[in-house]
């Protein structure tokens, strides 16, 4: 007797969904295998994202809390002479400043007796917000301007190109310093200005990609059948620029993180949030004896930028080998 499949029975695993998931994970595995450097970059980035999301869970201590240790020399009622010799002798506890890494404080404590590990963990939030946010703004803005510039050649293109030249003639750091001073230095404003400062590079990159696509025959064909400019841009040009967009997005992130760290280091970064750049600066005051704050905060900057750069390089090689070395 042949069994007839009952159409009401829902299969345990919907094969189509399962295939899609497994092909996603399979291509991820292939990426990790063929691009070990890019794979390790991905791992670094994922770890930092987890750290940022779980900062409050893994912080161990409140980053703003000032810790105290018992004073070994404490004396209840010191004489004036003893007080002159050691001004702290009258207080039972001291600020736990400059503790070495290990034990309760994994990365030690800073000048004000705060836990460096907790500060580093919370600093990941700012770096990720800045890097990803600014890159999104730069790519979206660069896409709009770059498409207009490439599609409407002529005076508009020339003017946009000269403005891009102008922005590139000023060192990126100076540009960012000027922009971020215009408004209050909240995190959101800093992200916005970093993205705007990055427009020059993304515009140039996307413009040249659009120029290439515009010359292709399918765009000509679309024009022949009477498609409007807007339709050609959205239906024909844009999908063919996706690879360049992803590349522009991923290779910019590290640069924005470095720029934010630099302005924070110079004391002009976003206010009211722990920042690695500002921690490197704070630690420099006692670098020779207590280098840990500088070492760990700067190490975190290097590691996160390294992760994004490795991932970006690998994505670029996979998506568009012609841009290698660009």
């Amino acid at each position: 007797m042949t069994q007839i499949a009952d159409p009401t029975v829902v299969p345990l695993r919907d094969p189509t969904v399962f295939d899609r998931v497994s092909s996603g994970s399979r291509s991820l595995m292939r990426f990790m295998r063929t691009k070990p450097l890019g794979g390790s970059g991905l791992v670094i980035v994922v770890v930092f994202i987890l750290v940022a999301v779980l900062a409050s869970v893994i912080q161990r201590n409140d980053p703003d809390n000032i810790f105290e240790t018992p004073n070994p020399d404490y004396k209840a009622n010191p004489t004036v002479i003893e007080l002159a010799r050691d001004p702290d002798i009258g207080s039972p506890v001291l600020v736990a400043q400059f503790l070495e890494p290990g034990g309760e404080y994994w990365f030690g404590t800073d000048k004000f007796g705060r836990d460096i590990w907790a500060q580093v963990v919370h600093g990941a939030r700012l770096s990720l917000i800045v890097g990803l946010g600014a890159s999104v703004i730069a790519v979206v803005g660069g896409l709009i301007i770059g498409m207009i510039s490439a599609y409407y050649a002529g005076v508009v293109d020339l003017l946009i190109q000269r403005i891009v030249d102008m922005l590139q003639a000023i060192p990126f750091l100076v540009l960012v310093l000027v922009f971020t001073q215009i408004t209050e230095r909240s995190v959101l404003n800093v992200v916005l200005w970093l993205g705007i400062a990055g427009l020059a590079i993304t515009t140039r990159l996307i413009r040249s990609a659009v120029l290439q696509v515009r010359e292709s025959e399918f765009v000509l064909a679309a024009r022949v059948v009477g498609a409007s400019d807007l339709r050609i841009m959205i239906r024909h040009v844009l999908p063919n620029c996706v690879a360049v967009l992803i590349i522009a997005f991923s290779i910019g992130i590290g640069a924005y993180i470095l720029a934010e760290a630099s302005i924070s280091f110079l004391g002009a970064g976003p206010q009211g949030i722990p920042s690695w750049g500002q921690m490197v600066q704070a630690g420099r005051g006692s670098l020779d004896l207590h280098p840990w704050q500088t070492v760990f905060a700067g190490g975190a900057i290097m590691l996160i930028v390294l992760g994004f750069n490795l991932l970006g390089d690998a994505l670029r090689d996979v998506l568009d080998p012609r841009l290698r070395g660009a």
Partner: protein
Amino acid sequence: MQAYIIRRIIGAVFVVFLVGTFSFFAIRVLPGDFATASLGLDAGSANAETIAQRKADLGLDLPIGEQYANWLWDTIRLDFGTSFLTQNSVWYEIGRSLPYSIELGVLIMIVGFTVAIPVGLISAIFQDKPLDYGLRGIAIMALAAPVFWTAAIASLVVLQWDLFLIDVIGQPHLWEDPGRAITWYLIPMFAGGFAGTATTMRLLRSQMLEVLRQDYVRTARAKGLRESVVIMRHALRNALLPVLTVMGVTIATIIGSQVILENMFNIPGIGNKVLTSLFARDNPVFQSVVLIIAVFTVLTNLVVDIMYGVIDPRIRLS
């Protein structure tokens, strides 16, 4: 060729004009101005009248259009005005700080290129060997490390092992007292060179790999030339051209890191001037130093483009 050069020069002048205009308006758009800041430190003593008087003295009370016209006319005549902060002429300030920046910049470039070129070459020759992976790994790290952190770690190493004393009394130039000046420049030049090297090294490596697969390299090998001649004369020369094209970008990057390094090591150069004039709202100095930096990068790009046109006829004809 002449038409090409003229077209490029006109473009370059226009870009410099745009940068000047940008920095003119940028420093005025920022909240606060020098008159208020210099008087406002002690809020009680400054009233609206003295601030207005001070603004009038500095020419900050004029309508923005008039200020711009004045600035444009003065700048065309190369009159940069007087610093609000020091009361010296801006030319004097630049004359004093530019040599420090040029010294440091040249040292950074020397370090950068003497490392990048051999390393890029070696990395390409030993492609996918452990040496190549190691060198590329270092380059990727150098690209990721913030320059201020590299410099801080280098200072830490110098301090920990007492390698040398940094003696900067009198802020000596290299040509005045090379022995003392070099102790001052040593850390920033290596930190800056380290950061500036990575891009050049990676670019040179990928170019070398491409060039080494070209027919003319195979021809050179086939006719029995020694490998060193093939690499140095046939491959490296061609691989260096693209490195030359990004010279403008490389220099802009180096100037950017100089802003930080000069601030860290108290080198009174142009980079330091950018920061102090920006934070003090010292308009004449800020406008002028940004303009000078822009002239420098634009000029580099121009020279590179023209040289490229001379070397490679395909470019000037397109």
